[in-house]
């Protein structure tokens, strides 16, 4: 069933999801919303990895490098979310805001 859909469709969906996530990371004010945009970008990259594994590998069963890579990306995303949200909560305790425009102690 998979190969009825061209690889290009998956790549375009992943590119669109990456761009949406990049907009969230660049344009949102709330630090937690910025982290959500980063999660969207990581998901888009994972779609690409799995699609290239499924369509590019001549023997997808005995060589599952794409899936292993995606698993590592998911693990690193979990670590990133834990540390990032801990930082946001620590900043909220000391500065009483999560607005990234007001967290400018190191800016000038």
């Amino acid at each position, binding site marked *: 069933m998979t190969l009825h859909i061209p690889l290009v469709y998956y790549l375009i969906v992943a590119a*669109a999801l990456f761009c949406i996530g990049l907009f969230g990371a660049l344009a949102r004010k709330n630090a937690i919303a910025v982290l959500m945009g980063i999660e969207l970008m990581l998901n888009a990259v994972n779609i690409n990895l799995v699609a290239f594994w499924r369509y590019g590998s001549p023997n997808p069963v005995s060589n599952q490098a794409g899936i292993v890579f995606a698993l590592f990306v998911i693990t690193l995303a979990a670590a990133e979310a834990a540390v990032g949200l801990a930082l946001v909560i620590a900043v909220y305790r000391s500065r009483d805001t999560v607005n990234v425009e007001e967290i400018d102690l190191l800016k000038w």
Partner: protein
Amino acid sequence: MDITGIVAQLVFGLVAVLTLVAGFLTVTFRNVFHAGLALVGTFFGVAAIYLMLEAEFLAVVQVLIYIGAIAVLILFAIMLTRGLMQSETSNINKQWAWAALAIATLFLGMFLIILQVPWVHSGGAVYLDITPFLGTQLLTTYLLPFEVVSVLLLAALVGAFIIARE
């Protein structure tokens, strides 16, 4: 094209539109809590895309880790920091138009490149349960990265605990 192909393309189109709409709502909802719920919908859509690519184990991992752990963590963090949640002011910063312009250019470039590259479709058939092979490879070929990433995850969790502590 036979009926299976048409059904497959219909299902793919539905899943893709749902994923992208949920992702768009994630970055545009003014209420951050609603954005977090839309993020859960995006994760479900990505899990469905993994299923369509015959990566069943990864789809289950996506639901367990992303929806079960990361999304819940994000929702907890939103509820702990009620700063901008019910704000009337805009949730988008002043540079959003420039960001949107740059990102539209980036997407156009990626779109044209994707359409022009002659991709090879050499994917062989996946006709048996592939998860045991994945486990074998994870603990033989990729053993060193597996152990390194587990130590890194432990360090990150301890670090997160220390940072968030009083």
